[in-house]
């Protein structure tokens, strides 16, 4: 039976079944739609990962983070400074085996320029339970403009394997209600969003 000759030698000229054709068109159109939507989210969405990245020596980044913590330190928790920067400030958060440093205290509805980098290996910034996950590299300073939309206590865990202590690597962000009139906060947040690309 395997010696019978092929049914149609010119397979590339055969007609295509209707159902098949419809499906090809649907699949293609859906691909185009997903592409357009991804681009569109840069304009209509409020969650787009920033591309602002600079090369930085780990020691230089450590210095910046320490200066930042000293400048805005509010208190201390188990030897770790809790830092309360003003709205709109440059905020430094460093990852190192096995700690996110320092602890931050932010205000709901305010935007901050968060500088993320690592002093040693790659780490995974994973804000919980909000579930924002960003890769952190040594030597790259990644700047994200972040606006908390809920108050409470949030954990940062590490979700890039970084050695045997990986599961002990945590950090914390407190988000407090804004003290002054609510309207003001909302207005500044809205203005900030408005100026996004």
């Amino acid at each position: 039976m395997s010696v019978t000759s092929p049914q149609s030698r010119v397979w590339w000229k055969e007609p295509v079944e209707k159902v098949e054709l419809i499906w090809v068109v649907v699949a293609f159109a859906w691909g185009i739609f997903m592409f357009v939507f991804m681009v569109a989210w840069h304009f209509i969405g409020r969650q787009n990962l920033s591309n602002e990245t600079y090369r930085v020596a780990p020691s230089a980044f450590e210095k910046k983070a320490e200066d930042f913590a000293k400048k805005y330190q509010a208190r201390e928790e188990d030897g770790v400074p809790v830092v309360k920067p003003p709205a709109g400030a440059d905020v430094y958060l460093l990852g190192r085996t096995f700690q996110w440093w320092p602890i931050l205290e932010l205000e709901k509805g305010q935007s901050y320029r968060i500088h993320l980098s690592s002093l040693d290996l790659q780490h995974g910034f994973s804000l919980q339970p909000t579930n924002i996950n960003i890769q952190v590299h040594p030597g790259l300073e990644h700047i994200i403009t972040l606006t908390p939309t809920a108050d409470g206590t949030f954990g940062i865990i590490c979700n890039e394997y970084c050695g045997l202590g990986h599961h002990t690597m945590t950090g914390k962000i407190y988000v407090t209600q804004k003290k002054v009139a609510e309207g003001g906060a909302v207005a500044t947040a809205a203005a900030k969003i408005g100026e996004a690309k």
Partner: protein
Amino acid sequence: MTSIDVASAGPLPRKTEFRQCQYTGLKVDIAAQTLIKVNAVAAVVFLAIGGLFGLLVALTRWPAVHLLSSEMFYLVLTAHGADVLVFWIVFFEVAVLYFASAVLLNCRLAAPKLAWVAFVLMVVGALVANVAVLQGESSVMFTSYPPLMAKPHFYLGLIVFAVGALLAVALFFATLVIAKDEKTYEGSIPLVTFGALTAAIIAVFTLASGAIILIPTFLWSVGLIGNIDPLMYKAIWWGFGHSSQQINVAAHISIWYMIGALLVGAKPLSEKVSRTAFLMYILFLQLASAHHLLAEPGMSSEWKILNTSYMMYLAVMASMIHGLTVPGAIEAAQRRNGYTHGAFEWLRKAPWGNPAFSGMFLSLILFGFLGGISGVTLGTEQLNVLMHNTIYVPGHFHATVVAGTTLAFMAATYIVLPLIFQREVILPGLARWQPYLFGIGAAGISLFMMGAGTLGVSRRHWDITFSDASISFQHSASAFLMMGLNGISALIATLGGVLFVVIVVGTVLFGQKVGPGHKLTFPLHAAGPEAVTHHGAEEAPKLTGTAILVAVFFICFVLYYFVNWKYLADLWLFR
């Protein structure tokens, strides 16, 4: 590619011994048959070892059991990834390549001696890498991102393995050339071989990327190179890591077509469409490695979008096409076989008691619904931030590579045992259940890991209670529940896996020899051999059932996609 010259241009081609297969009429080169056997056996050995490691990992991640110490956990997880994702899969793929070239084309295998060299290199490489991991100090996960550093022989083992695999791929090409020269087939190669060819072409690119990045990394680990840029490493490493998944997809889709052909006599709906879809993998998938870098600093949005949409969606489209043409071809064939009632009689009356069929169809469904939909969602630039590096990621790829590829390879094994090993499958009653057990278990681990990931649980993480952390953190109770359900599913998958290994090893050692005139326990379809070795499209088929299936699939896809955008819109704002 000197092997081609050695094999085909030599004045005296080696004396080849053939036998004729009583079920398919194919001429089988005995040397090729032996090589298919040894590669398949090596594959199953690594599946057994790696699967056991998988169970240990899952039991550790089950909070109520928490089996291993943290050090052992990271060690075993590294071994699990390497043994199943690399060694099991690639050994099996080499067997598939030899089968799709030499056997399906009635041809001799090019240079069997070199094929043995390839095999030995692969075995040695795999053993060396395993030893390195088991010695400790190389618990860097199979991705081995610098600056995390393993012992030099870890990288060396992987490099040697890749060289062996590359040689095997070269022999596949050489065999195609010989078959063409010696006119062992007429017209174009059959679709299954065509699919294997696309897998092989992608493999060249893939293994080259692997070598390009692992060789300098090896030199770095022995101190000859000062520094490996982590971002550059990742970009090239995923050229290997992701494209190798494309090899798997091309290989297991070829197997879907093959099993459909052999068991129900399915011919492609349209050769043109199916082949074009395979070609699209070659053209578009390589760059999709970008979707592993979506949460990375230092890459522009334009670059991410271009590489994940234009490139990836065309490859996704190709998979969606196969997702219609494979069940469509089966439906058409079953209707020809007389199952014409309603929309689904063809499916109800399919050979569900044959593990090759049930394994193949479950693989198709689970790969599409769980693996495909989650993969596209995960690979969307902004949505990636929701699950990057959470345990959602292993959830997604256990749907693709375990429920999809591994299950398809298991299904194919039930055909390879009687046809190539020429042994009757032992324990047929249990064999009938094996694909269901493994499929349900694999679907469970995929779903529950995805669920836990959505709740923020990290991948590659020993302790979700963070008991040793200086700053405490607690996951939600539902996250713990998900990880527990994942553990239970792992037990089911392991049961299916153990059964598979027992059946394969038992059959190879003790199965009844298949003599002339033997009636197979799991028979082939009378028109099967023709459907698999020749090309030609199905004529004027009726495809109501398949149309409904893909419509349901599409609705699930769209809903799930938008649900995730909704999740994203509820996050803190960032830009």
